[in-house]
C-alpha cells in the first residue's frame, strides 16, 4: 500500500485547491480555455460512482474512502448534486454521509452543484478533476446522480465506473431500458441486508452476462454491499483492484487521454451552443428553421 505524503494537503494547499475548484466551477467556456489546468502525468486512479438518487452512493463512497485512507491511500472526492431548476440554488448533502472520512488528513472532499449543466455534471468537471490531480492524490472519486447522460460523462472521465442499484425497485428493467448497465465496470446492489437484494443481484448478473463489456474481456461483477453491516466491502475493494489491473493491461494512456479530451471539447462546445440558443428571442423563432440554424452556427464560429 502506498504510504507516502502525496495527496496529504496542508491548510494552505487545501485552501488553494478549494478556491481553484470554485473558480473552475464558475468559469465560462472562454476563460477556462485561456487557463486550463494541464493534465497530470501519471494521472491519479479515478473511480466513478453513479446510480439513482437515494441508492446510497454517498454512504458507500464515505465508507470506502474511510477504509482507503486508513490503508494510507490519499483520496480526493468530488460529489456532484443537482441544482434546483427554479432558484438555481442547491442543497449539497453528500458530505453528511461522509463525515467519518471527511475529517481524515488524507482525504479532500468537495461538493459541487450541477448548476445548469445538461448531463448532470458540473461545468468544467474535466478541468476540476485535473486540478485535483495536480495535488497528487493516489485516487480520485467522482460521485454523480445517475440521470441518463451522466453515466456516459462519467465513463469518459474515470477509469472504473461503479453503478449502484437498489433491491426491490423496478430498477433492473429501468436499467435495461436506459442502457445504463453497459457503462458499468462493477455493479453494486446496495443495502444488500434488505429483503429482495439476492433476487436483484440474480437479475442483474444474468443481464450483464450478455452485456457489451463481455466483448472486451472484462466480466462485470455484480456485488451485494451493505454499509450497515460491512458485508461486501472487501469484495468491492477486491473488484476495484482487479479492474485497475485490467485497465492497466488493456487500455493505453493515449486512449484514456483521448476519451477525456473528447468529453472536454464536447462539454465546451455544448455550453457555447446553449449560450447561442438562449440568446434567441421568441420573435427569432418565427423565422424559418434553416435560417436560425445558420445563425446559430455562425454565432458559434464567432467565439
Amino acid at each position, binding site marked *: 500500500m502506498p504510504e507516502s505524503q502525496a495527496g496529504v494537503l496542508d*491548510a*494552505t494547499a*487545501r*485552501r488553494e485547491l*478549494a*478556491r481553484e*475548484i*470554485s473558480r473552475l466551477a*464558475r468559469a465560462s467556456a472562454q476563460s477556462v480555455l485561456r487557463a486550463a489546468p494541464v493534465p497530470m502525468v501519471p494521472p491519479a486512479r479515478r473511480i466513478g460512482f453513479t446510480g439513482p438518487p437515494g441508492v446510497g452512493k454517498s454512504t458507500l463512497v464515505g465508507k470506502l474512502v474511510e477504509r482507503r485512507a486508513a490503508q494510507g491511500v490519499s483520496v480526493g472526492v468530488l460529489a456532484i448534486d443537482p*441544482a*434546483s431548476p*427554479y*432558484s*438555481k*440554488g*442547491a*442543497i*449539497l*448533502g453528500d*458530505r*453528511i454521509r461522509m*463525515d467519518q472520512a*471527511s*475529517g481524515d488528513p488524507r482525504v*479532500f*472532499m*468537495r*461538493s459541487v*452543484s450541477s448548476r445548469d449543466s445538461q448531463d448532470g455534471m458540473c461545468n468544467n468537471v474535466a478541468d476540476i478533476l485535473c486540478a485535483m490531480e495536480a495535488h497528487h492524490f493516489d485516487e480520485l472519486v467522482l460521485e454523480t446522480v445517475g440521470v441518463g447522460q451522466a453515466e456516459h460523462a462519467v465513463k469518459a472521465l474515470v477509469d472504473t465506473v461503479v453503478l449502484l442499484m437498489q433491491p426491490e425497485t423496478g430498477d433492473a428493467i429501468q436499467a435495461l431500458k436506459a442502457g445504463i448497465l453497459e457503462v458499468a465496470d462493477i455493479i453494486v446492489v446496495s443495502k444488500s441486508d434488505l429483503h429482495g437484494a439476492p433476487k436483484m443481484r440474480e437479475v442483474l448478473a444474468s443481464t450483464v452476462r450478455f452485456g457489451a463489456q463481455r466483448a472486451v474481456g472484462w466480466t462485470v461483477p455484480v456485488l451485494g454491499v451493505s454499509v450497515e453491516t460491512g458485508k461486501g466491502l472487501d469484495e468491492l475493494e477486491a473488484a476495484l483492484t482487479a479492474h485497475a489491473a485490467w485497465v492497466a493491461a488493456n487500455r493505453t494512456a493515449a486512449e484514456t487521454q483521448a476519451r477525456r479530451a473528447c468529453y472536454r471539447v464536447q462539454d465546451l462546445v455544448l455550453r457555447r451552443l446553449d449560450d447561442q440558443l438562449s440568446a434567441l428571442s421568441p420573435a427569432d423563432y418565427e423565422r424559418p428553421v434553416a435560417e436560425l440554424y445558420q445563425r446559430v452556427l455562425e454565432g458559434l464560429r464567432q467565439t
Partner: protein
Amino acid sequence: MSLAGKRILIAKPGLDGHDVGAKIIALALRDAGAEVIYTGLRKSPQYIARVAVEEDVDAVGLSILSGSHVDLVRDTVRHLREAQGGNIKIFVGGTIPQEDVEPLMTSGAAGVFNASQRIEDVVAEVGRLLDDA
C-alpha cells in the same frame, strides 16, 4: 433577495440534537439561490472550519440550541483562522439571549438571529452582509 452564486455552510456544533431550524434555514437559503452544504449534527468547531475551507464557502451559519454558543463561536472563529478561512463570515442562530448578542459579535460573528425573526428577514440580512464583503 438573491443569493445566487453564494456558498453557505450550515453547521451544528455542540451537543444539542435538534436541527429542524437548521434545515429550514438551509431550504430558505437554497430557495434564494444559494448552494447550501449541511454538516449534520454534533460537529466539532475544528471539523466545521475544515469543511468550510474545503467547500470554499462565503459564510458559515451555526445553529446552536445548547446554550454554549459563545464558546462554540469563539472556537469556530479560531479554527477558521488556523485553516486560513479567516475571511469566511459567521452567522449564529438559535436560542440566544439578548445579552449574549454583543459578546457573540465581538467574538467574530457577523450576524445573530433568533427564532422570533421572520425567515425572509434572516435571508435578506444574510444577503446584505455577504454583499458587503
